[in-house]
């Protein structure tokens, strides 16, 4: 094995076992090349570096993530890096605290507040919300049981797992400050936030306002603005309100950090977030357009826009690596799915990654997604004052408007990538999802004349239930016949 030399095999989705064999061929010095919290690592002496993260699914399976054995993976070095980095986040957050950084839980708004937090030197933002996929990845009730003991049971969305994680103090360090968004956000998660209050030293509540459609807003007298990136229409009064909320956040953060932040530092924060969002956009374009990356890896990429998996410096490097891989593949016309795979837009794909794998196994591919995180994909306007830019990106948020507005982005993607069908999956217990699905389906049918499949995602398991597999299979049969 020649040190450091690596050539990706032709693009393919591979099994857990196949990754084990491929991993054997990766040179060790290549594994040692990548570290999180890079700068802190250089100062350590002699001891085995703890900040490497380039590890295969086997590592995380051994530490409890049983579902990883059943998934399929992209076979590139960049994907290995992606998986290792994402799976390593628990460790990373504890190391952050050990290094003297202050760990701040941002909750409920999915993408906006971390831009402000991460502008401060020494502060690290993370989303406890993201723990919601752990019950699926571990095939385990451990976190859900812990949440149930605190009062949130089966009737609520899987994001209740976050409460279990708070109670256990073992998935992330107890945050010294939590910034919890409520108002127009997920009802179930607002409940989680309230119950989690006792586990954070302090909670700062932020109200996310409803984005009024100017069309039927009686008090804004026809004034309307559009967001910088997606051109989502909003009421300027709402924006002003949110900027005021963020000013409050800023004051609290300065007091907490004992540090007065400059306008320039905030602008840098916006630029850093934008770098991630731009990379994500390019990756989406290549993955959904050309089929060069699998849907599961793309799910992880998209969610990275929320808080950069707690490492604002390393995450964009991971994305650059993926982008280089994706571009090489596109240039060579290599794909991870068949060229004639059925093209599907998926609204709120399940936290269980097995679903995305299954769709690809059955000869389809994802050409668009709506994960309720539109706000974090929105490019920020660098010419605006930073807080205003952040607030404006939130005006594109999935949950803060009508269902029709939420669907707009899915419809846009379906047109752009010539989708042949749309899947809408709701979360059993998720209060908005369960009721919104039918409405979403209606809007899509009205606008696009595409078949729509709706189903509710069941609780975690080792495999997808036969009934749901039948639905997906029948849906794909239907799309095939339409060709």
């Amino acid at each position, binding site marked *: 094995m020649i040190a450091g030399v690596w050539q990706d095999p032709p693009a393919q989705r591979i099994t857990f076992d196949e990754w084990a064999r491929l991993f054997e061929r990766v040179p060790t010095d290549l594994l040692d090349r990548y570290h999180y919290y890079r700068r802190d690592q250089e100062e350590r002496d002699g001891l085995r570096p703890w900040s490497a993260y380039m590890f295969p699914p086997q590592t995380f399976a051994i530490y409890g993530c049983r579902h990883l054995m059943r998934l399929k993976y992209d076979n590139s070095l960049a994907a290995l890096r992606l998986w290792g980095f994402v799976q390593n986040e628990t460790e990373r957050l504890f190391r952050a605290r050990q290094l003297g950084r202050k760990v701040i839980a941002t909750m409920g708004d999915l993408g906006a507040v971390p831009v402000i937090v991460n502008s401060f030197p020494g502060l690290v933002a993370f989303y406890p919300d993201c723990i919601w996929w752990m019950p699926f990845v571990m095939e385990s009730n451990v976190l859900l049981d812990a949440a149930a003991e605190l009062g949130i049971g089966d009737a609520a969305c899987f994001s209740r797992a976050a409460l279990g994680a708070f109670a256990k103090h*073992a998935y992330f360090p107890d945050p010294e400050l939590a910034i919890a968004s409520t108002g127009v956000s997920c009802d179930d998660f607002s409940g989680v936030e309230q119950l989690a209050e006792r586990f954070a030293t302090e909670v700062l509540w932020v109200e996310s306002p409803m984005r009024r459609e100017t069309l039927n807003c009686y008090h804004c007298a026809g004034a309307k603005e559009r967001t910088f990136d997606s051109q989502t229409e909003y009421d300027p009064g709402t924006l002003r309100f949110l900027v005021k909320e963020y000013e409050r956040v800023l004051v609290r953060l300065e007091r907490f950090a004992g540090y007065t932040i400059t306008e320039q530092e905030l602008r840098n924060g916006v630029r850093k977030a934008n770098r991630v969002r731009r990379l994500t956009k390019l990756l989406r374009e290549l993955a959904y357009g050309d089929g060069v990356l699998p849907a599961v890896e793309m799910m992880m990429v998209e969610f990275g826009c929320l808080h950069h998996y707690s490492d604002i410096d390393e995450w964009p490097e991971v994305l650059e690596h993926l982008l280089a891989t994706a571009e090489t593949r596109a240039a060579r016309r290599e794909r991870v799915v068949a060229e004639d795979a059925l093209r599907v837009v998926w609204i709120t794909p399940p936290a269980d990654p097995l679903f995305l794998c299954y769709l690809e196994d059955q000869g389809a591919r994802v050409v668009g997604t709506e994960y309720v995180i539109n706000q974090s994909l929105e490019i920020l306007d660098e010419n605006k004052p930073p807080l205003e830019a952040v607030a404006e990106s939130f005006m594109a948020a999935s949950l803060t408007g009508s269902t029709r507005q939420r669907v707009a982005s899915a419809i846009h993607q379906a047109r752009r990538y010539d989708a042949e069908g749309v899947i809408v999956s709701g979360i059993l217990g998720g209060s908005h999802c369960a009721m919104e699905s039918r409405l979403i389906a209606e809007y899509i049918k009205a606008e696009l004349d595409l078949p729509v499949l709706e189903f509710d995602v069941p609780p975690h398991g080792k495999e997808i239930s036969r009934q749901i597999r039948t639905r997906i299979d029948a849906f794909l049969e239907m799309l095939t016949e339409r060709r």
Partner: protein
Amino acid sequence: MTEQGTGASGPHKELLTSVERFGLLVIDEKQDRVPVFPFITSHAAQVLGVPLREYVTDGATMARAQLVAQDRYGHDFISIFSEVGIVAEALGSEFEFPEHDLPMLRRPKWSELVEPDSRVVDPSKDGRLHVYLEAIRYAYEARGDRVPVLVYIPAPFTTAQHLVGTETFLLGLMLDPDRVHRLLQYATESVIAFSRAVINAGGLPMLVDPLASGSVISPDQYQGFALPYEREVIDYWHRYDLDVILHICGDTAGIIEAMPETHADLISVDRVDLGDVVSKVGRKVRIVGNFDTSEIWLSEPEAIERETERMVMENRDCPMGFVASTGCEVPLATPAENVAAFVRAAQRAGSNPDYGRRRK
């Protein structure tokens, strides 16, 4: 397969699972209590009430016994282990399997120190390696989200002795060291090949090297012949970022300071002064030790509780972390109430009342 009982929660409900607790230990965070790790190996056969021969030749039986024992005692690791000849057997040494005793070496692969062939074990076919793999998969499916499935892998030094017989091997250390090194390299390749399959099945490998003990060889011989191969295996496991326990039984006082050079993350010791170990290497590695295995077998439960408590109180603040364990395997015939007394006392004495309290 039915969902197994409360597992890590043991007799009373605890906040963390064993997986969560071990996870905190290896990233240098305080846990709700010290992990408790009596080496419950073949003793589990007695808990389930199956003959040892069945336990060591049938993976499902081994796993079931382990799960039942873990339910009963509430300790923090499942232990997949038969005896240390497992890799040598897969390479061609012959063992016998008494119904009520552990496998014994009948005839080593070679009767003299020869140039080894080029064979590497095939874990799916050779010897009883598949028994381990089956046991790992079974236990992992049943409880892998909550309890680590620890697999005792014999180190190259111990494996090599089972390939040529102890006497031949020890003589070879002095008479033909080059050939011994080639034999050790040969053993290393198969140890790694086997551990690769273990890792892929969901097992966390732990390296055991009983024949590298100070009771058998000198510190110089340890450094020259055992340590480099221990390190080679551990470095391989570190490619997977696994947190490795190295266990050497017997007297390791003379080699304790060298043991961290294997790159092990946790060092497990047997008949040595634990305080001495902690003061010598406790700043470099986490310490696993070392309740006397004759005591756990023969003492009264009250005495075991007392002694366990003392051991845990004295060592729980070991700088890099501490795991309360037995010095070696819990003897087969140990009364269940003795094991329960050990676990109970270690959990109590090792508990951290400040866990989860808000930091000021």
